[in-house]
């Protein structure tokens, strides 16, 4: 009797496991189907994805000779790096400054800071367009950069703020107590302590910038980043050179993410072993 129940339970468990596996697999297929299609067509000889015309590495070879794509890539990457660096610096100092502000003005500024996060990208983009054309900024690259810095800033600030809140005010005082000037205390204690927040703010800013289409579409006047280039091409059919480029980018990111993940797992394990050793020694 007991045996039968146990058997039924284990069978149920297996059914459940099978169902779970199937479901997750189906979801992953759904998520990756378009990506597989894109990568698949990067190896075709045809110029667009409309039909498969045999295997070729032609798109990869031609990719680097395509001036328009290389320009767009350069715009995307350089804007991402510049806007992430600038917004991280401005945003970190802004957070430190806001943190020591009185409650009322701080709340006001924090609420305004949330606006670009809440505001639909479309509306933000249009608002930039109106501002820039009023101010007479003609340089599309500069316009895009300003827009990207602006929409990155709230994300940096809201990554750094919680870290500042966690970090004890006493650390700053402790540094002063031990002889640091306020500037040194900031450099040697406060910033290293909130560094994880700064780094995640930077990464977030970089990704948002690289991924942005809507705001760039409205804000930049004629300058194309990759997103805009792709959107413009989509009407006529996207060139397989773009497939090749995005396959390269995607695989790079995938590899990086996996390495970081595996590394952190390994580091955790190493730290655990280290701790155990120390514990044994001191026991």
């Amino acid at each position: 009797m007991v045996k039968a129940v146990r058997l039924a339970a284990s069978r149920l468990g297996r059914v459940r496991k099978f169902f779970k596996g199937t479901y997750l697999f189906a979801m992953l297929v759904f998520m990756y189907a378009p990506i597989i299609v894109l990568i698949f067509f990067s190896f075709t000889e045809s110029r667009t994805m409309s039909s498969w015309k045999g295997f070729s590495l032609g798109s990869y070879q031609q990719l680097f000779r395509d001036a328009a794509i290389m320009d767009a890539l350069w715009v995307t990457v350089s804007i991402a790096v510049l806007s992430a660096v600038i917004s991280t610096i401005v945003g970190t100092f802004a957070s430190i400054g806001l943190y020591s502000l009185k409650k009322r003005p701080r709340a006001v500024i924090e609420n305004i800071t949330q606006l670009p996060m809440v505001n639909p990208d479309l509306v933000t983009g249009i608002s930039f367009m109106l501002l820039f054309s009023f101010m007479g900024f003609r340089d599309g690259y500069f316009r895009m950069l300003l827009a990207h810095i602006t929409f990155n800033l709230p994300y940096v600030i809201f990554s750094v703020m919680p870290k500042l809140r966690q970090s004890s005010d006493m650390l700053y005082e402790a540094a002063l107590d031990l002889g640091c000037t306020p500037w040194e205390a900031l450099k040697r204690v406060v910033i290293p302590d909130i560094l994880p927040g700064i780094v995640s703010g930077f990464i977030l800013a970089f990704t948002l910038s690289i991924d942005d289409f809507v705001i760039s579409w409205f804000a930049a006047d004629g300058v194309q980043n990759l997103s805009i280039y792709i959107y413009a091409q989509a009407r006529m059919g996207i060139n397989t050179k773009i497939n090749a480029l995005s396959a390269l980018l995607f695989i790079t990111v995938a590899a990086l993410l996996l390495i970081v993940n595996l590394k952190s797992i390994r580091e955790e394990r190493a730290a655990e072993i280290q701790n155990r050793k120390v514990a044994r020694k001191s026991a």
Partner: protein
Amino acid sequence: MKRTLFSYPYILWMALFILAPMLFIVYHAFFENGRWTMEYIKAAFEDAVYFKVLLRSIMLAFEGTLLCLLLGYPTAYMLSTMKKSTAALLSVFFILPMWMNFLLRTYAWQVLLGSSGIISRILSFFGFSDVLLLHTEGAVLLGTVYNFLPFMILPIYTVLIKLDKSHIEAANDLGADGITTFFKVVFPLSMPGVISGITMVFIPAITTFAISRLLGGGKYRLYGDLIEQKIVSDGDLGLGSVLSLILLVLVLISIVIMQKAEKTAGSEGGTLW
């Protein structure tokens, strides 16, 4: 040296690039050549087309959000019940697609759904030939779900893995079976994650404009498409600004509703980041 000084460059930036641009939208919505006008407001509310498109956008966002929840919750739940290291790795796989340009991924669906695409071929193999997939409302819905699904899975997943296992044990101890435990304990406790998931899907879904263009073939215009067309193609800044403001108000209303819901569901919200 006063630390508050550090915030001044940002405050200046904020005034110049966050507040001022918004004022420009308001200005263009209510002023024509420096004079007050209600014309654009009237146009936006009187023309039935705008209202119809707005309604369609809201409906689509609702359907998309619901589908994301129905597909995403089980995914998040299954991930949360797995071994920690496996779940961590798998959740990376669910984030990874976001690293490929979303326009490109959406465009790939165009290829998949097209008349010579793989799905049509499979369907015709089973005898369903000439089923129109692309340029339908269903295609736009699929694009929406596809693009925003990770934003539903992740917040729910983060709340579920942080869930105190002793709550589940307590429920079992008190005589609840697996299904009862799920509906009476696990699901209510995961509400903060569900709500932030809904917020993160519904709001971008209601404002999207490229997805419908790529997968709807221009037949299923959404509110975002309308605004983009007014501003970029027609150069009608006044009407475009009014429509933008309407969209903004709509988004703000939904955020307020979500925040209310979150407060009643519990304070510990799950977020994506």
